[in-house]
């Protein structure tokens, strides 16, 4: 039986149980970064809120997934601890929407920052659903290594 495992704002989670479905409900300008590898014993998800950490104190935020430049390295490290080789990693990303219009800059910056981080680690993006103006719920099927994206019916929603 599949068990959804929601990941909150700024959180990083790794699951070794394929019956757990890492997911984010109600994703707006944030970006969900799923990392996985064929045949690997674990998958991971970071719920990125902002592109870059302030970097004032040189330390990591209390929420390791909050900033893209900390979230992706942390997720790679956590997966390595779980026995997943970095060279085998693949990524699926979703989010970065301009909900309410005015958040467009943040969403785009988040997507760009995540892409840069993944490029830096040499991790290819195999699946993505980013941008637009609507919120998303995203789930990752660990069995099929497939991203499942759900949105409210677009473009117009009758109230």
């Amino acid at each position, binding site marked *: 039986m599949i068990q959804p495992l929601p990941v*909150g*704002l*700024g*959180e990083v989670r790794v699951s070794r149980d394929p019956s757990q479905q890492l997911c984010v*409900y*109600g*994703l*707006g*300008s*944030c970006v969900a970064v799923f990392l996985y590898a064929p045949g690997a014993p674990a998958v991971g998800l970071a*719920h990125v*809120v*902002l592109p870059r950490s*302030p970097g004032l104190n040189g330390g990591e935020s209390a*929420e390791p997934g*909050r900033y893209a430049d900390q979230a992706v390295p942390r997720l790679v490290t956590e997966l390595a601890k779980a026995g997943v080789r970095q060279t085998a990693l693949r990524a699926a990303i979703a989010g970065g*929407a301009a*909900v*309410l*219009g*005015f*958040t467009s*800059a*943040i*969403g785009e910056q*988040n997507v760009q920052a995540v892409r840069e981080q993944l490029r830096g680690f040499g991790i290819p993006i195999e699946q993505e659903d980013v941008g637009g103006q*609507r*919120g*998303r*719920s995203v789930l990752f099927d660990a069995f099929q290594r497939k991203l499942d994206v*759900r949105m*409210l019916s677009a473009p117009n*929603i*009758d*109230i």
Partner: protein
Amino acid sequence: MSEGADPHAIGPVLADLLGVPVELTEREGKRLHLRDLPQLAGPPDAPSVAVYLSDEVGFGLQVLLLFPLRDARALGDLMIGCGASSEQILDACREIGNVVAGRFLSDLADASHRRLTPTPPQSTVDMAGAVISSVVASSPGGTRLRSLAIRLHAADRSIEATLVLLQGRMAT
């Protein structure tokens, strides 16, 4: 929040406008954690009408109102009458947003001796958590957040909404 701005002051204003008793409850007594913010208005993927306003001169105040769809419809019934169109319902929600933001900014203007006016309300129908997290993400560091549950006691049912107030540093 800021001196002179009491969120509970909007209760009587809404009661006068709508002609029904209004109840306001602080949503969380405990500290609000970042990870949980998308759930402030219930399930984060719940379809909701969201209304957003801020102040035009950089006082750093942001007002976000979220109505679950069924409550938005009930608000339309209350303010316009049964059979209100989607656009009329959105208008009704935006009007409540105007009233709430106007009340806050009036209090803040009195306290700061500045002239403050709200931006035109922006609205959308989307997942509540997507809207909340997007507004939080776009807010500068150090922004304070409060959340209140609003309950309008209409004759045949109660209408519920969530008010999220964010206030950052005042621009000089």
